[in-house]
């Protein structure tokens, strides 16, 4: 355990170094050659969520490479995110990468941006809405397809009864995941809502559900930070259920290696952040669009015990 810990500390040191390098490099290169464009990245990420941090690192890496200035803005509410688009227009940015998590609430702000001649790329959320909103392209995982893949996986693992742990009641893309599972899954699926990142409550609720229905044999968490909590809840309830998750964290990687987590559906958030900024740059410098009118898919890919080795080192850096 001590040895593991030392590795952990090293990994942190490495990720701090990497992280700061990624953030500093646009500034340092600007000394020699000032950035050509300013791009805004606007998301519905909750502050303090590891997943969004990886997206941001990807965006910062692309901004450094393309020599553009990146403005990162986030607000988890519909009106808040729409307001940020308006703010970005007023700052006269050269491009906007946007998560269409609340397509209807964002529609008028998107129109304003288009009227101002600002190119927009969708990413991460809004796979069904980006064409209708008139965005130039979309990079991300189709959540319904990802959910369907998970449903198939549950079938092949022999599951008869499963719960879907949802940490943000009302968020469209999380619902699409659960609904996708329902489409292909042959067993009974229950949705269990937990309140954000309050782990004690999340654990109690999962334990309660397992006690209420002992036939549950699989738990699917929609966010990887809930994996250790689900594993712990299973032990407390004396259940035999297995765990699978959407997305990845370093501790989820460890649990896959230890065999306590069966699989993780990776949508490669780093690529989403990176490609969204890079696609804006391609459009501004060369008029290019990517995807041929279709979404550029970054997932789903299953990370399991078989392929965890290669993924693990990047997850430790905080980029997967």
């Amino acid at each position, binding site marked *: *355990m*001590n040895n*593991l*810990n030392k590795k*952990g*500390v090293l*990994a*942190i040191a490495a*990720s*701090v*170094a*990497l*992280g*700061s390098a990624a953030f500093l490099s646009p500034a340092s290169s600007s000394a020699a050659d000032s950035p050509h464009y300013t791009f805004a990245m606007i998301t519905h990420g*909750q*502050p*303090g*969520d*590891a997943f*969004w*941090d990886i997206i941001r690192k990807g965006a910062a890496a692309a901004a450094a490479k393309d020599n553009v200035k990146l403005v990162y803005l986030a607000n988890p509410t519909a009106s808040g995110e729409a307001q940020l688009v308006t703010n970005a227009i007023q700052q006269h940015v050269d491009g906007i990468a946007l998560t269409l998590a609340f397509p209807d609430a964002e529609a008028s702000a998107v129109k304003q941006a288009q009227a101002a001649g600002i190119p927009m790329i969708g990413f991460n959320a809004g796979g069904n809405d980006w064409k209708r909103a008139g965005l130039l392209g979309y990079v991300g995982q189709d959540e319904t397809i990802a959910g369907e893949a998970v449903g198939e996986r549950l079938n092949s693992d022999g599951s008869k009864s499963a719960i879907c742990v949802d940490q943000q*009641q009302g968020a469209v893309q999380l619902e699409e995941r659960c609904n996708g599972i329902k489409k292909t899954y042959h067993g009974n699926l*229950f*949705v*269990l*809502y937990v*309140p*954000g*990142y*309050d*782990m*004690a*409550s999340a*654990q*109690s*609720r999962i*334990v*309660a*559900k397992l*006690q*209420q*229905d002992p036939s549950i044999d699989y738990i699917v968490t929609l966010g990887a*930070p809930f994996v*250790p*909590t689900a594993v*712990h809840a299973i032990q*407390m*309830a*004396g259940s035999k259920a297995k765990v699978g998750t959407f997305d990845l*964290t*370093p*501790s989820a990687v*460890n649990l896959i290696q230890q065999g306590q987590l069966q699989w993780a559906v990776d949508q490669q958030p780093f690529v989403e952040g990176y490609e969204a900024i890079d696609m804006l740059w391609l459009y501004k410098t060369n008029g290019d669009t990517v995807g041929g009118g279709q979404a550029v898919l970054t997932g789903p890919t299953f990370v399991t015990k078989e392929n965890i080795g290669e993924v693990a080192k990047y997850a430790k850096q*905080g980029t997967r």
Partner: protein
Amino acid sequence: MSTTAGRAEPRVMRRQAVRQPLWKAVLTRPEVGALAGAILVFIFFTIVAPPFRQVSAFATVLYQSSTVGIPAVAVSLLMIGGEFDLSAGVAVTTSSLAASMFAIEVAGNVWVGVGFALLLSLGIGWLNGVLLIWTRLPSFLVTLATFLMLQGLNIAITKLVTGGVATADISGMPGFDSAQAVFASSVQFGRVTISIAVLYWIAFALLATWLLLRTKIGNWIFAVGGQGDSARAVGIPVRRVKIGLFMLVGFAVWFLGMHMLFAYNTVQSGAGVGNELLYIASAVVGGCLLTGGYGSAAGSALGAFIFGMTTEGVIYADWDPDWFMFFVGAMLLLATVVNTWFRGRASRGR
């Protein structure tokens, strides 16, 4: 002005309690309404939710209650002392983040991190109290400001120190096993496993009740919250009592923060927002007045217990999860109404 009469009530009441018959003394306690509400909610879920009847389910309910109840005990004392603390929810996360990062980056042993977090949490409590006295603003505003600042600091400093927004796993560090035994172990009672947090919660509630009802400091707290000017006139150190109460909340959030850290090993820096309202709600359901000067520490434990039964009971009853928050809110409203009605009847019966 009717509140003035209400504020003086508990002191009068305790003097009367000596002469009254026991049942009357019990019925006029502030927490009796919460007890009635708790019994009602318990009977309700026992009927509608068969899995709720298992002893292991009761352990789960108690655990959920304890994570609200530990800070709620301190918050109830603070409210009796006439002040609010809106920063308590995120301060729990601040404390676990501080302990984890200090242990990993500086100390190399988790116990040093635990000590550092204690100093920090007491310091935040002290700052809340001092700001309140310096600025003379209502504590609602002062602690709202510290709440928002802590929320930002949690994320910003975590990001500066770790490069990410969650802390690394501390479960392999020196001192982890002993710290986990103290803060987050489980105790076996027959076939049921109960988290040690539940035992601490009950102990804290009993200790705070004793402090309130049997010591000079308890009298001071009631007096400071009820009639601050009169309290000052008779020589009670009002400022020191208030700062002390904020530091007590600091201690309670530190304790819960350590439990969260050692039970879950990593900390998400965005956690804790919104929980401060649950602590305040528990104290109020348990009989505290929003105006101060009246209330009960044991009542806050019953309030937290009602909350725990409700959130878990909705799951045991297998109600449609889309309606989850609605059911929780409706049950809390029901418990509070029963509580107020019962208290009204009880004090009139006197």
